[in-house]
């Protein structure tokens, strides 16, 4: 047996936009074990619920993570609405799903760019981010913010988005789809890109099940987990929804799943814009959650299932707010996928789970 070496990876590392530390235990060039250490981004947001009342806390949940900011405010708002028995309007439900899918497109484009940067294909990184700006322009036009929108609130949707604007969004997305196909083709068919991804960081179906993986990471190992299948909100109005699966379980499969999910999200938005009902987007919210009333919600974030739990205490302040985010689920799978990988492939494996450390640590 060769001698073991430990190589520290992170928290400051060129491929990591966010800080996470890994101790990589190596035998020659092969990783035999990876020991993650987190806590660089921990702020203690769940405790903040004692100092901010339930309407103010929407803004805090948005700032759990800047990439999935809309998803977090959506999950929190749905949770409080369930807790207080508020019925929101159909138009607000549709708008929420449209914006949630738009943030999935922006998140996946961002990730595809980072992935390209991870294997040294800088031109592809720049092109993916150039396309992403078109989605951010939509956000800015409709809500005023590029990454934090403050659009979703308890009781509905803050901004009225006119039907003309929605039709404009569809036109922009159709144009984006054409440009996106060239990027997708390079990511999936280029032989140099394939040589970095095929067979790297393999996670079997059984392992994915055993570690309870979520999101595109699990779907790339053939596990059919997608919270959108539950049909909460306007997802129930879709004529059909099939999660995108792959059974290869390697980095290439994870890339493949996300590439196709962008196109799927465009289709979902097109369908919902065609069907969106007229009406108000906000209902007035009065009172506060009852004492010891509890509720939970799940939501499909761009990175997978997010879980929200809230408990009222009879006043404007919640007794407890608990959020479990997709990356905290996926870290165990990442460690499993890392063992056996070459040292040079480590950044690829870490990137393909799409780690969101801000979400994980809150």
């Amino acid at each position, binding site marked *: 047996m060769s001698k073991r070496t430990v190589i520290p990876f992170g*928290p*400051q*590392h*060129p491929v990591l*936009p*966010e*800080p996470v530390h890994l101790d990589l235990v190596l035998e020659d060039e092969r990783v035999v074990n990876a020991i993650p250490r987190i*806590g*660089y*981004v*921990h*702020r*203690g*947001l769940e*405790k*903040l619920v004692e*100092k901010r009342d339930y309407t103010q806390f929407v*803004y*805090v949940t948005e*700032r*759990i*993570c*800047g*990439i999935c*900011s809309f998803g977090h405010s959506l999950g929190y708002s749905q949770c409080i609405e369930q807790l207080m028995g508020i019925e929101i309007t159909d138009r607000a439900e549709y708008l929420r799903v449209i914006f949630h899918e738009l943030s999935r497109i922006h998140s996946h484009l*961002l990730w595809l*760019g980072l992935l390209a940067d991870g294997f040294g294909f800088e031109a592809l*990184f*720049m*092109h993916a*981010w*150039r396309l*992403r*700006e078109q989605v*951010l322009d939509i956000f800015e036009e409709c809500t005023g*913010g*590029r*990454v*934090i929108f403050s659009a979703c609130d308890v009781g509905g949707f803050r901004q009225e988005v006119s039907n003309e604007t929605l039709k404009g969004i569809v036109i922009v997305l159709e144009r984006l789809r054409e440009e996106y196909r060239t990027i997708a083709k390079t990511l999936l068919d280029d032989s140099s890109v394939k040589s970095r991804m095929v067979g790297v960081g393999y996670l079997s179906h059984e392992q994915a099940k055993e570690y309870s993986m979520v999101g595109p990471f699990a779907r790339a190992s053939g596990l059919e987990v997608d919270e959108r299948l539950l049909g909460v909100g306007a997802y129930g109005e879709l004529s059909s929804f099939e999660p995108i699966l792959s059974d290869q379980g390697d980095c290439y499969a994870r890339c493949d799943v996300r590439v196709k999910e962008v196109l799927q999200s465009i289709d979902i938005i097109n369908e919902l814009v065609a069907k969106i009902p007229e009406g108000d987007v906000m209902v007035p919210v009065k009172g506060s959650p009852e004492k010891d009333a509890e509720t939970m919600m799940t939501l499909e974030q761009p990175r997978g299932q997010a879980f929200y739990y809230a408990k009222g205490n009879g006043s404007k302040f919640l007794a407890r707010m608990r959020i479990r985010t997709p990356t905290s689920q996926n870290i165990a799978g990442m460690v499993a996928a890392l063992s056996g990988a070459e040292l040079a492939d480590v950044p690829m494996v870490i990137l393909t789970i799409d780690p*969101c450390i*801000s979400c994980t*640590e809150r």
Partner: protein
Amino acid sequence: MSYVSKSPWIIHYDGSSCNGCDIEVLAALTPLYDAERFGVVNTGNPKHADIFVVTGGVNEQNAPVIKQIYDQMLEPKVVVACGACACGGGVYQTCYNVLGGTDSVIPVDAYVPGCAVRPESIIDAVVAGVGILEEKAKAMKMNPAHKDRSESDAASGAHVPVAQVDDVPGASGAGVE
């Protein structure tokens, strides 16, 4: 702005932020905003960097990391605090694990407001940082504490003599107008 005398290389570290500012820092480098036209390059090595871009607040665990990156950077260096959290804690100000803004561990030269910051303001701050960088470089030449080092460098031929640097047009003026 008509003229920048130096291509500033930046190093970016995410403190305890929400990611919003981090992706805007990267967005500032990508085609729409394209800070690379000013020669701004994002580097992973503190020793290559002139400007330290920090996003997010400081907590117990990342304070030593921020300090270490800052210490590894060579003089002259500029620190840019990007976003409300890096400027003073932002929405997380009252959280139990947040010590405050970047200036609670290292000196900050430029503060960029916004939650999340806009790429335009990041570019503005980095370009202003070049001006501060030059002032610092000038102050280093005046300061006797640094004199010994520059003299020995000049003797070994590693550095251009101070007088010659001043002769280069524009090198002594502020980079930003």
